[in-house]
């Protein structure tokens, strides 16, 4: 169902000082894994696009949000209380897995920061997916809810601290661990990262038809 509906906040779950998961009631809203919405406080002048973080089958909707200083919408949502109303429109987008049940299909997901949201949604929605997830983060604390991913499939590429699965950027990791060229590769996050990783994967022989990209900033 497309449209703008009134939804109410159920909870705000802090993951770090700046990052949180907001949970709102579903209110009949339907979306496909990988799609996004526009979301903002009720009657606010501003809204922003956020990918669905929870499974579309869950009885609620969740969105992973990073509130940067000065970001009016994200900061207001971070301060939201249970029962507060939000405005939501959508769903939108084509960042989808077309045939998740295809046997033998392997996936590479590459995200930076909160760009991990659609991948969290994918793995919640399609538990049998054969995937590897590279998550570029600055600190160990930014490995948002990594226990949600199957053992051995999640690799945090931590650029500023030791102690994670890999110390460095996702591009460093990919240089050391070239990708099998038959993988379907999904890239989501900062546009500069997306452009760099795209070139890297093309150089490694991944066909352009196997590369899907999503950027929001």
């Amino acid at each position: 169902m497309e449209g703008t509906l009134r939804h109410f906040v159920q909870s705000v779950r802090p993951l770090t000082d700046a990052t949180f998961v907001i949970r709102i009631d579903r209110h009949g809203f339907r979306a496909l894994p990988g799609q996004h919405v526009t979301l903002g406080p009720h009657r606010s002048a501003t809204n922003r696009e956020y990918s669905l973080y929870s499974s579309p089958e869950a009885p609620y909707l969740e969105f992973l949000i990073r509130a940067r200083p000065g970001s009016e919408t994200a900061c207001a949502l971070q301060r939201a209380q249970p029962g507060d109303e939000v405005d939501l429109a959508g769903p939108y987008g084509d960042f989808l897995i077309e045939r998740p049940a295809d046997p033998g299909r392997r996936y590479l997901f590459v995200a930076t920061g909160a760009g991990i949201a659609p991948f969290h949604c994918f793995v919640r929605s399609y538990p049998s997916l054969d995937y590897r997830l590279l998550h570029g983060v600055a600190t160990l604390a930014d490995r948002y809810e990594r226990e949600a991913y199957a053992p051995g499939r999640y690799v945090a590429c931590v650029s500023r601290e030791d102690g994670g699965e890999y110390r460095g950027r996702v591009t460093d990791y990919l240089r050391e661990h070239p990708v099998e060229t038959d993988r379907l590769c999904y890239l989501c996050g900062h546009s500069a990262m997306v452009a760099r990783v795209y070139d890297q994967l093309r150089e490694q022989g991944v066909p352009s038809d196997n590369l899907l990209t999503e950027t929001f900033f």
Partner: protein
Amino acid sequence: MKVAISYPPIVNARGQVAMVSQNRNVQYFKIPTFLLPIVHAQAATWLRDLGCEVRWDDGNAQRKSFETWYEELVAWRPDVVVFESTTPVMKFYWRLVGRLKNDLPKTVVIMTGYHSMRQPEETLRACAVDVVVQSNHVDFVLRRLLPYLGEQADWRTACTIEGLFIRVDENVWRSTGTFKRVEDLNLSPDIDRDLVSWRRYAFENGNFLRTPGTYATSVIRDCTFGKCTFCRYNGPDLTFSVRSVERSLDEYQRLIEEYGVREIFDDSGVWYRGEQARAFARGILDRGLHRRGCYFGFNTRFGYMDEETVALLAKANFRFVLVGLEAADEETLLRLHKGYLPHQAYRNLEVFTRYGLHPHLTIMVGYYWQTAAQLELTVRTVRDLMLKGLARTLQVTLCTPLDFTPYHLECQEAGVLLTDDYDAFDMSKLIVRTPIPHEAYYQAIRDLYGVATDPRFVARQLRYLTSGRARDWEFLFRYGWRALRRVRNHVYNLTSNG
């Protein structure tokens, strides 16, 4: 290698010239409106930097007749000619390519644009074009392709640069795969303003209060949101790319200091928002560019600009804000996937005008579902916004399905298209079946533009003079008569073909 980036003069039966307008629409105008094609201008600059001999060949802006333009192009004997096409001029381009290939059989003709990128095989079937570019990043693709053409004699079969359909022989062509959607715009050069004769585009443009004005090199190419169903910047094949704030500031400074530009408008997509917009405004202030007699303007969406950001932009001498309202009823906004609600439009406009910005609304009428009540609400709302001073100028168009956007595909699926003749897709008349007579939509256009002569609107403009802001005086006394002339032209174009 000699490369022509060409825009032929296209004249219709009424003597109007097809001109690229906002959002890469082609409309026929009697009064000139010259918009610099930003991405193609970046391509021209980049190719020149690579050593190509580039001919910036905009026959419209150069005010040539078609025959003069054509003869000069043929006499120049280019190795490559690049065109930009869109639905209402596709048939013209197909005929033109046939004639050109006949006169210059060795010239490689490359078709770009949002129509052919969605239907490349149609153009390969319909004319003798050599290459169809499927990417919106025309500069990046040409930068990769043209050196390759010069070096590889077997390029038709060997080329693997993605995002192309290449003719192998008369009836065979091949795809090189999906194009790269996100490019690093910092790699594409600033437009060489001299190469593209920028002053030809600096005066005849209704969006400039001060002249000479110009458009900035792509800051955000296409749209951060990219979901409005009628818009070219939407589709599973598109996303947006972004240029760094510092790089963009450098260009603004250069335009002001070296070229004496007095208004800069960024319309290459939806502009920065949030922290990037604030950083840009702070950069303008830090460099003192807000005191150099130049206004700045941008294209945005409702919902993207918070008050803190708008306040900073106003301080940095931003003036013009182009924003797509499209309609005032919730159903239409939802069906168009606009991503905001009517109340947000009011809230945003209140903030813009509180800080002295001049919002320019774009509105469309004639959606295939639009009822009399929805149309009336839109007319009433827009007039209310104008009379309250929440918007300064407006632009109304007939919603025309174009370039295989989601709205275009939706119209095909719903069976509401009244014609499949691309010549009729020129936005001069409605081409979809609607629930009320077409005349009602044409009348709505007259009513909307009629607000410009409403005494209450004029009185409000007079009241603005007490603000002490130069822009308000300029708006009334310098821009006013120009606007009225354009309003008459728009109303004629949009309502006389029905």
